[in-house]
């Protein structure tokens, strides 16, 4: 079934849903930028950029609250059903994921500041760049799939998370081996490990967003490995 959110008899309802979606996508854009900036601040030991990421994090929290309030008002005033209801529900869920991505970006920024203070890690930057580029792509693609109501693209992006998880585990093993060889580096390499952990979590959140694209368009809840629900829908 095609998705149209601009054909309600109530024009105000069209506008409410449209602005809800726009607000969410704006938040998504901001969060994506945060991830990029956080990783860059870490890679370039740029504590100024890291501070900026931390400042903007508060704005993201406010946006999540504003989206929640907006969605609550739509439910109270319009009692949305079917695709409208799924739109509102998916926005609420995605906003929560985006806020958490924002938190992870904040954590990476804090690691960047720590690494600037303590000196750079002897290992791990290649892995960070590699995984960061994969999860940023996933995040972009997931929001893009939402904009275009593109289930196929969402499913493709969702599948990428498996590779990210594998790369993460490999990187963790390498970092542990290195720390065993050179215990003096432990505290710095731990910062890299926390960063990798945050990036892996961002991949999970991008995956959650993809699941919401499927929910919005097909009405199937495929979270927690229930991808067979898509076939039933």
């Amino acid at each position: 079934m095609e998705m149209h959110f601009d054909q309600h008899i109530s024009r105000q309802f069209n506008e409410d849903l449209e602005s809800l979606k726009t607000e969410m996508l704006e938040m998504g854009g901001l969060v994506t930028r945060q991830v990029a900036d956080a990783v860059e601040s870490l890679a370039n030991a740029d504590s100024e950029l890291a501070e900026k990421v931390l400042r903007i994090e508060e704005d993201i929290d406010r946006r999540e609250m504003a989206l929640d309030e907006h969605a609550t008002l739509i439910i109270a005033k319009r009692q949305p059903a079917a695709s409208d209801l799924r739109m509102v529900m998916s926005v609420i869920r995605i906003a929560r994921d985006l806020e958490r991505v924002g938190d992870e970006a904040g954590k990476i920024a804090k690691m960047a500041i720590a690494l600037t203070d303590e000196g750079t890690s002897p290992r791990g930057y290649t892995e960070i760049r590699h995984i960061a580029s994969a999860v940023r792509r996933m995040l972009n693609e997931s929001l893009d799939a939402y904009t275009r109501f593109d289930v196929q693209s969402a499913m493709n992006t969702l599948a990428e998370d498996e590779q990210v998880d594998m790369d993460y585990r490999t990187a963790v093993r390498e970092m542990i081996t290195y720390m065993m060889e050179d215990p003096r580096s432990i505290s710095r390499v731990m910062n890299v490990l926390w960063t990798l952990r945050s990036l892996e979590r961002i991949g999970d959140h991008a995956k959650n967003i993809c699941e919401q694209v499927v929910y919005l368009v097909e009405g199937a809840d495929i979270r927690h490995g229930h991808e067979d629900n898509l076939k039933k829908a």
Partner: protein
Amino acid sequence: MNTMTLDAAGQTAPAQPESVEKATVDTDTRVTETVGQPFCDDAKLRMRGINVFYGETQAINDVSLDIGRNEVVAMIGPSGCGKSTFLRCINRMNDTIEGCRVEGDLTLDDEPIYGPRVDVVPLRARVGMVFQKPNPFPKSIYENVAYGPKIHGIASRRAELDEIVENSLRRAGLWNEVKDRLDQPGTGLSGGQQQRLCIARAIAVSPEVILMDEPCSALDPIATARIEELIDELRENYTIAIVTHSMQQAARVSQRTAYFHLGHLVEVNDTETVFTNPQHELTEAYITGRFG
């Protein structure tokens, strides 16, 4: 009373039914056949290939639907879609409309409703009806409920009638409010109370099926909530079909929802499915308030 025809089941029907919109069938290429689950295993009412005509005009086009035992089926759709017309086929209320013709097979417990030997009086005792506007008789509260059982010969002794009246009013959730003024006119009650009185009157003759045609459209939200609560309780003993313009009401009270559009039955599905993920684009358009 002059303008009402009063039938033996204790139901009144306006002689010129004001609430029946003359539905007309139109061609819409998006409607081919009913999607979803129109049939069920434990059907109390089985309706197949129903066509209804008002003179030359076709109001219902080839509708097939089952209504299960202890099930509430909600019928929704825009004005003039035929949902009330369809509901009124079930207890042959359309017989009272000049020029109305019903085709197809309707059975109640596998017995034909439109059979040549069917007497509509006992039929309407088995298939009770509650209308949009509460229409108590201009009699006492007691008499409103006792009238049906009396003329059906279900009870004649005062003690039996007392018991039926009390039970019916209790089941309709009205007993505590009226038990001290049973001799006062039913028309003196509030709108919500009058509607519950009509429901008590309908269940006094021990029907098997209750048809409700927008039973809450004239009621305030509190009275509506009471009726909805009551519908849920009545489901334990009866089969219920309800026509409603309130989508939220359909979502709250029914197990399955049927969507009518221009005399066609477009979709029947579990109510949950209809309101979260309808299969047909016309259902989606209607329940989300889009241009269909």
